């Protein structure tokens, strides 16, 4: 860099620069930066501690879980708890239930909400605003208002311990309809019109144009709905009375609330928790960016 590259001070005093250049970004003092970073790491470790702890507990013989002082790096690692869990409890049934219910839920919710979202997004019809408001209004209804009548209904029709109570009422969720509609609105009308002019049926347009174009929003919904179903507790706990009908969270809770603190088989219980959490966390780690993007989209669109 030679002197001639820099504007001479005397010249700049008399001449206003055409555009005021912002002063260079003041870097945060590196000491502060490192303190913040260290704090973040420490907080991160704290946040992950419960996961680590339950993992460790599941790999210890039950008697060691209650050793004082608690052991952070247990030496005799054992898979006994998992074996017990898988062979002498109803865990495998619960796992199957959770998996099937979550899959069925996603498979039902997706077409229904996508179709509704498309209807609200790309068509003009008389009752559109009123009906959309109707759908959205349900977002304010807390599940507590729905559970008692739903519980009674499914009980009286003898369907309480089937998958139906966990699938049917949730086949349309206002949130998903809202999210998909916000996305679909942005699809250019010209594409749809062109297809119509070409003679495509509305359903074909939906299936072959709208759905593929909505994949980002759809994958967000799939993630959210799958998670919701897998983790769902309140209503399944209420409506399922038979052990074989429990989903994972309900089954785990039944371990805890049946019997006093001393009776609890903490070893298999910890193993059950790990097996319930791990699939979700693994999927999350693999699809991190998708998750974040999805929640961001959900948040921003509000």
């Amino acid at each position, binding site marked *: 860099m030679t002197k001639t590259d820099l504007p001479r001070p005397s010249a700049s005093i008399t001449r206003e620069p055409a555009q005021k250049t912002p002063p260079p970004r003041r870097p*945060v003092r590196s000491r502060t930066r490192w303190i913040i970073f260290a704090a*973040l790491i420490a*907080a*991160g470790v704290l*946040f*992950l*501690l*419960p*996961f680590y702890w*339950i993992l460790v507990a599941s790999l210890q013989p039950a008697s060691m*879980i*209650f050793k*004082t*002082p608690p052991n*952070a790096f247990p030496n005799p690692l054992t898979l006994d708890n998992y074996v017990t869990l898988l062979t002498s409890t109803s865990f495998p049934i619960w796992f199957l239930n959770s998996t099937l219910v979550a899959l069925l839920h996603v498979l039902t919710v997706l*077409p229904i909400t996508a179709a*509704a979202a498309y*209807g*609200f997004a790309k068509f003009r*019809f008389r009752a559109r605003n009123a009906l959309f408001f*109707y*759908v959205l209004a349900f977002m*304010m209804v*807390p599940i507590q*208002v*729905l*559970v*008692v*009548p*739903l*519980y*009674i*209904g499914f009980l009286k029709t003898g369907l309480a311990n089937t998958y139906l109570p966990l699938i*049917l*009422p949730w086949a*349309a969720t206002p949130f998903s309809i809202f999210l998909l509609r916000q996305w679909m609105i942005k699809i250019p009308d010209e594409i749809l019109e062109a297809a*119509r002019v070409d003679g495509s049926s*509305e359903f074909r347009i939906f299936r072959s144009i709208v759905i593929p174009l909505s994949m980002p929003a759809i994958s967000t919904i799939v993630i959210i709905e799958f998670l919701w179903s*897998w*983790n769902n*507790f*309140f209503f399944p706990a*209420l409506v399922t009375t038979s052990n074989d009908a429990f989903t*994972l*969270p309900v089954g*785990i*809770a039944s371990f*805890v609330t049946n019997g006093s603190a001393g009776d609890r088989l903490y070893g298999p219980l910890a193993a*059950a*928790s790990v097996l*319930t*959490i791990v699939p*979700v*966390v693994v999927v*999350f780690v693999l699809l*991190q960016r998708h*998750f*974040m993007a999805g929640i*961001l989209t959900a948040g*921003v669109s509000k």
Partner: protein
Amino acid sequence: MGASELRAPRARRRQNWATPYLFIAPALLVLTIFWLGPVVVSIILSFTAWGGFGTPVFVGLDNFAKMLDDSALVAGASNTLWYAAAAIAVVAPLGLLLALALNDPNVPGRVTLRSVFFVPGIAATAAVSISFLLLLDTRVGLVNYVLGRAGVGPVPWLSSPNWSKTSVLVFFAWAAVGFVMIYFIAGLQAVPADVLDAARVDGASRWATLLFVTLPQLRPTVAFVVVIITINTLQIFVEPFILTDGGPNNSSTSASLVLFESGVRLARLGYASAIGLVIFAVTIVVSLVQLRLLGVFADDQD
């Protein structure tokens, strides 16, 4: 030109009028049967006393009158309000801090760190609660062990009325902070860059920029976060249920937990419905008040 062209648009219009209704019909059907129906039934049931057998007995406003005498519900209600206020006070600032720290491009590994704080929110509450049960155990829990090493006496986190609410709140906050952080990150990224540049050009310090430029821009996000936290805590159920089962002497019970017990353990279905309606009403009122106070008017862009 000619009759055929004139006929074609009309034919399209005739074929189109039913299409949007067909798309939205399944969702509307599900919502009406499984959401509107239960809301109506809930309202009706709340004026009855019913044990699940025979016919419900009309009791007028009896259920609502009984609420004030129900010590469990009074405790549950006040606890729930405490949870809501405490959650807002703890989770919102923490989430904002994390968002500010993890939105800074200078922080290494910030995407991973974001995931670290977010993961607790996607694990099944019932499953992770086991970990907290172990960590907070008075005798053998890691938390008391560490405190003991620092000379602080063992704290009865889950077995004392003085600490049960705090423990439940910590559990809730641990899972909620990640979501709030993500919402704030989205909000921060939506702050227009030229506004920030203008502040920098004017020589604003980092603190001043944060307080007088960024935060005002974040107002919609703050409103959203506060309302979301409120709605979620007003319905809080799983955390107190598994961690403390309502805590010693209802010290940590929540309105939803009381509803659950009334419905399931005590078979007072009319009363449970009434509780559900009260939760609903309170949620709506509080949310509207918050939105009003935070300067946001409910809107629906079209």
